[in-house]
């Protein structure tokens, strides 16, 4: 089976994108490493039954998650991003803390949703990220509305939303993309072509070759990039974000990548050809490729990267130690907060017997 999403001729090492300085390259590397290390820690906690629900890995997709988010303006009242379950790296870039991710996965009372939601389904609009729901495609209309509000208020802000290749089959994706295109919302859509929608391969999901073709059908500026090339994804997203910020409307960036783990940690990947996974791991790992670029171009020293690795491991260790034994939420905390008024749902009569 050909690796049809890998560019036939790998481009020469790209010139350093103009806006990036050496510290930023190292920061990009730190986010890549943090994503991978944190997920490895989550796997360990999952095997100890401390992560009580599903665990979703982004192994092989960290590059596009981190790089796309890195192209946004971060901070209060700046850009807003809506990630998917495989965009842990994007959330870390926007300012989510490892301890928040750990608490959320372990359903801790002090977690960002206090045990109400799973995995990376949480938000902090001040930091600039809005949690997804499980109904794929739904965040496209919601982000259309968020970016519509930017436009209505004349704010120079941009929204970015990820959709998986499978989600481009949903009605809400199409409705949302069209709505945003018509309204010329400052929205960047990252289409993650990762080859597997749970167990379904691309040829059973759509009849186009590139997801970008779908976006073009709505009059949206669309490009396809090598999703495992960190700098290429960064450059494409930066370009799209700047155009969107200047009022040029919706932009779609298809990132070709590969999901190297199952849909979730329970999934044995029986449907994925083993040699296919192996080839992507050996030849096209986004972190390996970025490290090679950093070293080959002498943008970083190996020792610096090793220092980052150690610091990241310490950070994840400390975050884990700080919350692993925290309590789960008290049962009664399930009742408040459905509405402002009434403030809490009724505790049912049989619980008083």
């Amino acid at each position: 089976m050909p690796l049809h999403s890998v560019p036939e001729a790998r481009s020469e090492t790209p010139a350093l994108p103009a806006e990036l300085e050496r510290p930023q390259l190292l920061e990009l590397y730190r986010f890549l490493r943090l994503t991978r290390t944190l997920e490895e820690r989550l796997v360990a906690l999952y095997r100890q039954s401390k992560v009580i629900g599903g665990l979703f890995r982004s192994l092989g997709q960290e590059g596009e998650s981190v790089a796309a988010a890195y192209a946004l303006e971060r901070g209060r009242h700046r850009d807003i991003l809506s990630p998917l379950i495989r965009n842990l790296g994007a959330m870390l870039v926007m300012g989510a803390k490892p301890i928040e991710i750990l608490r959320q996965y372990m359903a801790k009372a002090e977690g960002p949703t206090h045990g109400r939601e799973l995995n990376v389904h949480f938000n902090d609009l001040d930091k600039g990220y809005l949690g997804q729901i499980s109904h794929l495609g739904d965040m496209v209309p919601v982000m259309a509305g968020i970016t519509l509000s930017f436009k209505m208020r004349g704010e120079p802000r941009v929204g970015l939303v990820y959709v998986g290749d499978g989600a481009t089959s949903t009605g809400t994706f199409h409705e949302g993309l069209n709505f945003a295109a018509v309204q010329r919302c400052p929205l960047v859509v990252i289409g993650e072509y990762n080859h597997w929608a749970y167990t379904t391969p691309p040829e059973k999901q759509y009849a186009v070759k590139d997801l970008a073709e779908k976006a073009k059908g709505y009059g949206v500026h669309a490009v396809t990039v090598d999703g495992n090339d960190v700098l290429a994804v960064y450059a494409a997203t930066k370009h799209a974000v700047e155009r969107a910020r200047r009022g040029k409307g919706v932009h779609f960036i298809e990132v070709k990548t590969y999901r190297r783990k199952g849909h979730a940690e329970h999934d044995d990947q029986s449907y994925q050809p083993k040699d296919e996974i192996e080839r992507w791991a050996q030849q096209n790992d986004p972190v390996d490729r970025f490290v090679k670029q950093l070293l080959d171009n002498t943008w970083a020293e190996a020792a610096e990267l090793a220092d980052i690795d150690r610091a990241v491991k310490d950070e994840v260790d400390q975050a884990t130690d700080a919350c692993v034994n925290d309590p789960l939420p008290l049962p009664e905390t399930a009742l408040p907060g459905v509405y402002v008024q009434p403030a809490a749902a009724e505790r049912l009569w049989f619980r008083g017997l």
Partner: protein
Amino acid sequence: MAEVTFLEALRQGLWEEMERDDRVFMLGEDIGAYGGAFKVTDGFQKQFGEARVIDTPISEAAIVGAAAGAAHMGLRPVAEMQFIDFISCAYDMLTNYVATARYRAGLATPIVVRGPCGGYVRGGPFHSQNPEAAFFHTPGLKIVYPATARDAKGLIKASIRDEDPVIYLEHKWLYRRIKETLPEGEEILTPIGAARLAREGTDLSIITYGATVWKALEAAEQLGKEDGLSVEILDLRTLLPLDDAAIMTTVKKTNKVLIVHEDTRTGGVAGEIAARINEQAFEWLDGPIARVTAHDVPLPYASTLEDFVLPQTDDIVKAARWLAKY
């Protein structure tokens, strides 16, 4: 003082909120230049501009989703469903995304989704629906359903000001049929969650909402004249949350309850009301809780068929007589 229709009262409420709060905006199909299929928003775009009165593609899920996103950012969107029958296209967005947002994520989503509902107008299966039961089961949503011009105005204003998502159902049979004199220069706000005693009585209570409030009132007049029955009518006005206190008060007063709604029977709101009366006022009942509803079929077009399927004044009269004799 000026006499206004239900539709004009609704327009006034929308207009006043658009004037009062520049965070309020509208989006929907054909609502701008054309003013909406029923002209509810006629003149709004001219007054408030295209940015605040937005004509959208035919995309109910996107309309509601975009409204939710804008609401997260502090705006107050009012989304129109051209006919409320099409709200089902946004069912996922409303029940999964919007309704859960505050609980799961602490996200404020103060949106109003409004549109013309209801039958008795020969609209057929897809222009006559009453969708309340489909949303009644969803924690996180509110559902209001005014029957009077005053409440049409008071509830739209309260819905726009509410901090949580509200589905506002406006019965198209009432749009130009109901007229009421409303005070000018006085703000009308109808609290969400409070029922209204539409008629006082002592022998039997009819609990209802929407267009069937008016059919119940007709029936009550007839029952008074022909049978000497004193019928009390409770207009719920808000379905979610239900006003349990008002329901139990009327049950305890008359001890006999007829629940009337235009929606179909199975899984309808009447069943929930009956269950609550059973739980909270069982000892006060002097008869079974009776229901008058639509038959369990899609709503047909022909006048003979529609009139048969939907509850009519005469049905209410007969059911009330049956219950009174029990």
